[in-house]
């Protein structure tokens, strides 16, 4: 064999050997988490909504219904299977599961998800209304309106809910005021609300405001408090708490909401 032949043979042999050295590459960290849950159960709502997405190997959501079954189980053992609805959003199709089953204050529920990737479950506790009190100091001459929550609970949210006529249709506009929650040393929560600011934020030119109400939602354990950034929350798969959801990530809370009238002098603006 010539020198060139030897070189070519050697290179070919080495190439064959190297080509056989492929190592399978799994880009993901092995995880038992199969689904991602978002939402809350509200003991004062007619319908409960929970968003379920697959905790997948690729980004994005499918426009098809998910092959999963979601069941709400009462602490007494009563089960309700949630229906699925796919709703388009700017972040991709959202897979919403809903039920009109009763949810009551002071009880523990289980949300079970059966999926091909494995089961997931989370416990949801709604607060007992005897454990706390909500007062709202609001009125035509009161600025700001002040919401106060006392007791061993977390203030999940204070929402200003407007009904407006927009382009001839009656719409509901909700503003969360959770970022304005202030906590006293004894654990009492306060939120100050300014009607004029709220109206400006909620409405567009041409809107007609029909009503303004306050929704105060209280939870036994709410994971996100003041001073936490979106980056902080998103980087935690279970949104700041560990083992909330077995077999999945995300968060489903349990709340009790109360409704109050919202009002104040005009103008009533945040100083």
């Amino acid at each position, binding site marked *: 064999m010539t020198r060139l032949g030897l070189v070519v043979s050697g290179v070919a042999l080495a190439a064959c050997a190297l080509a056989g050295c492929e190592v399978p590459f799994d880009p993901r*960290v092995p995880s038992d*988490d199969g689904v991602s849950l978002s939402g809350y159960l509200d003991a004062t709502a007619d319908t409960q909504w929970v968003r379920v997405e697959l905790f997948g190997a690729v980004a994005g959501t499918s426009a098809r219904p998910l092959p999963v079954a979601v069941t709400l189980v009462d602490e007494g053992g009563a089960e309700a299977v949630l229906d699925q609805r796919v709703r388009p959003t700017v972040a991709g199709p959202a897979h919403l599961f809903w039920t009109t089953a009763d949810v009551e204050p002071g009880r523990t529920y289980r949300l079970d998800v059966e999926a091909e990737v494995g089961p997931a479950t989370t416990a949801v506790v709604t607060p007992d209304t005897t454990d706390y009190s909500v007062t709202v100091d609001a009125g035509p001459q009161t600025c700001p309106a002040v919401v106060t929550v006392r007791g061993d609970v977390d203030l999940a949210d204070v929402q200003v809910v407007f009904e407006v006529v927009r382009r001839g249709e009656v719409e509901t506009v909700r503003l969360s005021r959770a970022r304005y929650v202030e906590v006293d040393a004894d654990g009492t929560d306060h939120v100050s609300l300014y009607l004029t600011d709220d109206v400006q934020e909620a409405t567009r030119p041409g809107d007609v405001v029909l009503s303004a109400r306050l929704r105060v939602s209280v939870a036994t354990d709410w994971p996100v408090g003041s001073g936490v950034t979106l980056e902080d929350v998103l*980087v*935690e798969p279970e949104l700041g708490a560990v083992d909330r959801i077995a077999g999945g990530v995300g968060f489903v809370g349990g709340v009790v909401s109360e409704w109050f009238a919202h009002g104040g002098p005009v103008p009533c603006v945040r100083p």
Partner: protein
Amino acid sequence: MTSHPGRRFLWAALATLVVGAAPVWGQSVRGFVTASGRGPLAGANVALQRVEAGAAVGALRGAVADAQGFYEVGALEPGRYAARATYVGYAAALDTLVLTDGPATWSPELAAADGLGEVVVQADGGAADVQAGLQKIRPADLGRIPSPDVAGDLAVYLQSLPGVVTVGDRGGGLFVRGGTPAQNLVLVDGAPVFQPFHAIGFFSAFPEDLVGAADFYAGGYGQRYTGRVSSVLDVTLREGSTEKLQAAGTVGPFVVSAQGEGPIERGTSSWIASARTSVVEPLAEAVGVDVPLRFMDGLVKVSTASDASRCSAHALGTYDRGRLDSESEDAFEWRNLVVGGRCVSAPRGLDGRIDMAASVSHLDSGIGPATAFLRSDGRERASRLTEGRFSADLTRSLGWARLQFGARGSLVITRYRFGDDATSREDGDFLLGGAAHVGLEVPLGPLTVSPGVALVMKPYSESFGLEPRVRASLLPAGPRGPELSAAAGLYRQSLVGLTDERDAASPFIAWTGPPAGFDEQTALHALAGATVPLARGLRVGVEGYARRIDGLPIPIWSARTQFTVLPVEARSTSVGADARVEWQRGPAYTYVSYAYGVTEYQAVDGPFLVRGGQPYDRYNPAHDRRHQLQMALQLDLGRVEAGARWQYGSGLPYTRPYGFDVVVPPFGLPEVTTAPGYPRVVFERPFNGRLPSYHRLDLSAGTDVRLGEARLDLRAGAINTYNRDNVFYYDVFRGRRVNQLPLVPYVSARLRTP
């Protein structure tokens, strides 16, 4: 004048600094060594021997021509000297010089050894000859690394050097010993080029045929180079032929090119021009493969020379656009435009060499969705950078030492826009900066020490900083024996290139001043090594290094699948070592290099992120390649020249996710019926995984045939010969693996006029 050597030196240094002239210690001979009709011969040897009555007197004195072909031999006694200039592949030039008073100029022109045939040159040293981080790259070196085109490119050679890391065969960025592309200074005839490496990684703005010489400092560079903290690539373009008109054209699956050169005034001035465009995109499309990458470049240089000076002007333009992932809509583009002029002269009234350069460099780059990309408002991120620059450097002999000093002034204008709605930044800077430097090259027997310092104006704080540096070389057994070398220094960089660390393969760099709360980047380099000729044709080089860069702006780590560059301050630490072996025996040339390196980023003011209450304050960035092995073989089999190159790189870090989802975070009630939610990637910590190791074999074979007076060069070969699925990067935003090029066979041809 006093005869005390110390006082004489101080006086000389002061006088030189003030008026650019100094008393003369003995006589000097200087000039330019050129190849007949081909311009400067970097690396040529010049030797002077004093003779009296036909007999040699005293020691043989000599110097090596630099990248501009300039040499200077100082501290000579008046008298008669036999002068000799040599370069491998050329006939030696001989002359007799009579030195009386003042510097003498001798600019020899060397003719090709065969008088008629191709000019084949071989520089001293080669790939294994590294001197304190400096690799002198000569044209003959470039052709020794197989390239997927009959006309090679400087980029291929640079990627064969240990310590130079690319994240893949696309994107164009070079990471040198832990530094990032934005920390590299690339000069072409004294003018900066901000993004010179094309999106197709085998090509740069510097075609092989146009490179006269290139000095590549992987670190430890001297005080002359300021403004960057990682590496320097100083390219000197070749001059066109001053004797005859020549043309060449190439056709291949990657590029087609045309090149021409010729005299403007025979014997003294010339022009050279080149234009290339990539064709891989339409060719791949024709065979049903999507390779959405395109580049083009053009270059023209005019030169004029006399015995005592060489002046040139050049213009360089590049354009790149495409998508790194053919299945992604994310597109990029960038444009370089550089116009510059340079004069290197040794005027009769001045004992020394003056190197003056002026230039304007511009970079325009952006990223956006491919469908809307050609519209200016289709860019999601955009950056523009323009620098006007003037520099003057003087080098002269002080007898027992060489003095180097100079100054640089620059005006930089930046404009950038990036980020999503939540983190968008749009800003710009208008910066006046400059630096002055002075240094000595002091031979102390076998030891040569080159201390120096640069006084740098900090444009952002309107203050000054000193950057002391030192380089040293020891030749214990003379110039043909082993060489030990070392370098250390302090380096600063005010201009910041912001990238999204999570997007390792992105070619987009947002150029700006230091972000709010940041000072300039400051680096400390220390390195030492040895080059040992073991036998005839066999040379081994080893080098170890450590470097630290402070003030590094690193984008915060977010789980949001969107671009963010809100920075936190980090410190980069890199340590490593590399070894090179180069063996030329008969028709066979073998080059083997190995590099080991570790690069770590450490947060300075708080962790990069906190997960589950645990802070993560350090990680190995995406270019932390621990092991790198390269082997190149070239066989000259008479009519056919065969080459092979095998590359191995251990896996690069990437952020290994748990998975992806869309969540509605409970900032208040998560209203899932109305809120769209946030797409996110859930990961444990940055760069917690490593991609599979990378290896690839490229083969090539070439020959040439005469077509009348013209010559046709043919080359055929294959990239990734065993078609390995090398991972380019893992798109952590989309959960997609993107591979590098598969097996790509090619045939390319070049037609050249004599």
